[in-house]
């Protein structure tokens, strides 16, 4: 029993007693179950396990603090309507917004932030971290940190492009199908069924094996794979709007399909579509990360998070954590977007479960 272990349990138990005394039921439950879980984990993993829990708790506390401050910051800066919405947002949502903001800054100002170019060889292979190389060098001696920063631009940018394309195609087809119905609706619907009945990764692999792996092909293929989801949603949402009286009134006074879609249907089906955009981005991002992890995405020497994991996987067998950072970056962005989408869905549906 070291002082660390004694201090660890003492702190946890004291905190849970305090929570119980001040009748904070939720905090007490959380703290005390953490204490019980620590007993088990401590028995299995010993001191390192408790160390990990402490670090994790500190990281979560830090994230919560950042999220809280960010929320207050946004509430002051934004105009009134938005500020009101932001004030009621859960901490997870504001954390998500913060992460998205950070990634955007990182991607846009990548050349300013990164100390070296993405393809510059400046050290030996797998050089350890130092003053100049924050995270060490990769398998060819390029700066890991710079490549991660550039990766924000390349990986996220490409996923965003594919999502936008998928969304554009899917939403337009869906809105038209809802308005026109008839054979157009039928053909698009059956086409969407076929595409959705093939697993997305498998479909992407098939297409990439045929057309080769260049950027255009990847973006188009991924957009085709995910546009049926948007098609179905926008068709369903627009289908509910189309039957409204004001649509009938508009078409009776002689408005064309284009006007109906732009001025009447789209504004009334925006909220679910925006939430869907976030979800869609997550799917596209994960699929593209998977493809580039398999060596079939963005080709070297362009920095890309998925392929960076694969290229440096050897380091993991030496117990190094650096190759996991790009993978963690992928996970973090996806989680962040999911948090924000959750909040938006909650707001737009008013669903309380």
């Amino acid at each position, binding site marked *: 029993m070291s002082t660390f272990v004694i201090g660890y349990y003492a702190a946890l138990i004291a905190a849970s007693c305090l929570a119980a005394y001040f009748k904070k039921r*939720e*905090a007490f*439950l*959380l703290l005390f*179950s953490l204490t019980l879980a620590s007993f088990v984990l401590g028995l299995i993993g010993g001191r390192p396990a408790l160390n990990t829990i402490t670090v994790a708790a500190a990281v979560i506390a830090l994230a919560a603090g950042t999220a809280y401050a960010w929320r207050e910051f946004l509430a002051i800066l934004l105009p009134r309507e938005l500020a009101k919405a932001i004030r009621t947002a859960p901490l*997870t949502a504001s954390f998500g917004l913060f992460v998205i903001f950070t990634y955007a800054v990182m991607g846009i100002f990548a050349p300013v932030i990164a100390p070296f170019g993405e393809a510059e060889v400046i050290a030996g292979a797998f050089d350890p971290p130092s003053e100049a190389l924050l995270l060490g060098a990769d398998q060819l001696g390029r700066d890991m940190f710079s490549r991660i920063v550039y990766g924000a631009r390349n990986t996220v940018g490409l996923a965003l492009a594919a999502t936008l394309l998928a969304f554009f195609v899917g939403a337009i087809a869906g809105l038209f199908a809802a308005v026109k119905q008839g054979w157009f609706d039928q053909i698009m619907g059956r086409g969407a*069924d*076929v595409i959705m*009945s*093939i*697993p*997305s*990764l*498998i*479909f992407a*692999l*098939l*297409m*990439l*094996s*045929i*057309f080769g792996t260049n950027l255009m092909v990847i973006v188009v293929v991924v957009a085709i794979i995910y546009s049926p989801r948007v098609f179905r949603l926008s068709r369903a949402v627009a289908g509910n709007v189309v039957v409204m009286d004001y649509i009938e009134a508009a078409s009776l006074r002689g408005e064309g399909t284009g006007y109906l879609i732009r001025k009447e249907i789209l504004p009334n089906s925006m909220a679910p579509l925006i939430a869907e955009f976030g979800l869609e981005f*997550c799917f596209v991002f*994960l699929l593209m*990360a*998977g493809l580039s*992890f*398999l*060596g*079939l995405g963005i080709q070297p020497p362009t920095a890309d998070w*998925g392929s960076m*994991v*694969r290229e440096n*996987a050897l380091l*993991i*067998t*030496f*117990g190094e*954590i650096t*190759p*996991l950072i790009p*993978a*963690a970056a*992928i*996970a973090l962005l*996806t*989680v962040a977007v*999911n*948090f924000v989408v*959750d909040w938006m869905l909650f707001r737009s549906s008013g669903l309380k*479960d």
Partner: protein
Amino acid sequence: MNDVFKLVLKRLGLGVLTLLVISVLIFFAVELLPGDIAQAVLGQSATPENLAALREQLGLNVPAPVRYFHWLTGAIQGDFGTSLITGDRVGSTIGPRLLNTLFLASYAAVIAVPAAILLGIFVALLRNTIFDRVANVLTLTAISSPEFFLGYILILYLAVKTGWFPAIASIGRNADFSTMLYNSFLPALTMVLVVMAHMMRMTRAAIINLLASPYIEMARLKGVPAWRVIVHHALPNAWAPIINVVALNLAYLITGVVLVEVVFVYPGVGQLLVDAVAKRDFPIVQACCLIFAATFILLNLAADVGAILTNPRLRHPK
């Protein structure tokens, strides 16, 4: 009962039809190649004689619809032609690997399904408490992480740092069952984590939907004990959504297995597919895609049929 039979038959017919359309798609996608397969294999600098010989060997001189028919009839009997690179029969290359993949997928499913359903029900009962929120964040994180991230984390902590499990899941030809279970534990665990998170969330949503219905409130108000409300009132109606959740997630396993196999160098179909895509070995790519798509459709079909069987309302469509 006759009605049910008819409905199920109709769904089956629809499934077979979808599969046929997909086989057409998979076969004719290769026809979209600039030039043809022979050109793609031999490259731009091939001599006309070589091209002609390879075309003859691959039977490319026959019109595409005829070749499609041969390919499909062969595929039904497990004969997918020969590999372009090694010249082996594709069927015999895939066979043992398919067994390995099925072993891995069912290993993961056996652990994930009961655990996810139990935890999902548990979390649904504790909804809006702190545990529910923690579980929500945890499952969301697991879903949002790419499979290779989870896989490498497990390798780092359970294989490299502690040495409890092997990092490379090689299963020998004549290893006994327990060794196989031990060796492929990490890839299975990776898939369990991802699929379980999905299933838990969906089960939770299904149960919460049910618990909000008036007849549950009625049961509670008349003083039925909590466990009895769950087991006798909620669960019979929850089976349909739960079966749906399970089948959909098993279908999800199919995509996940490709990445996981590559991370753990597991000798399965996913790894084979990725290698074949990189080498542009089309017969293998086609065969693997067809197998994956067929399994996916089959599981989706199972979800539909399960829903029909457990929900009498679906038997009498309005």
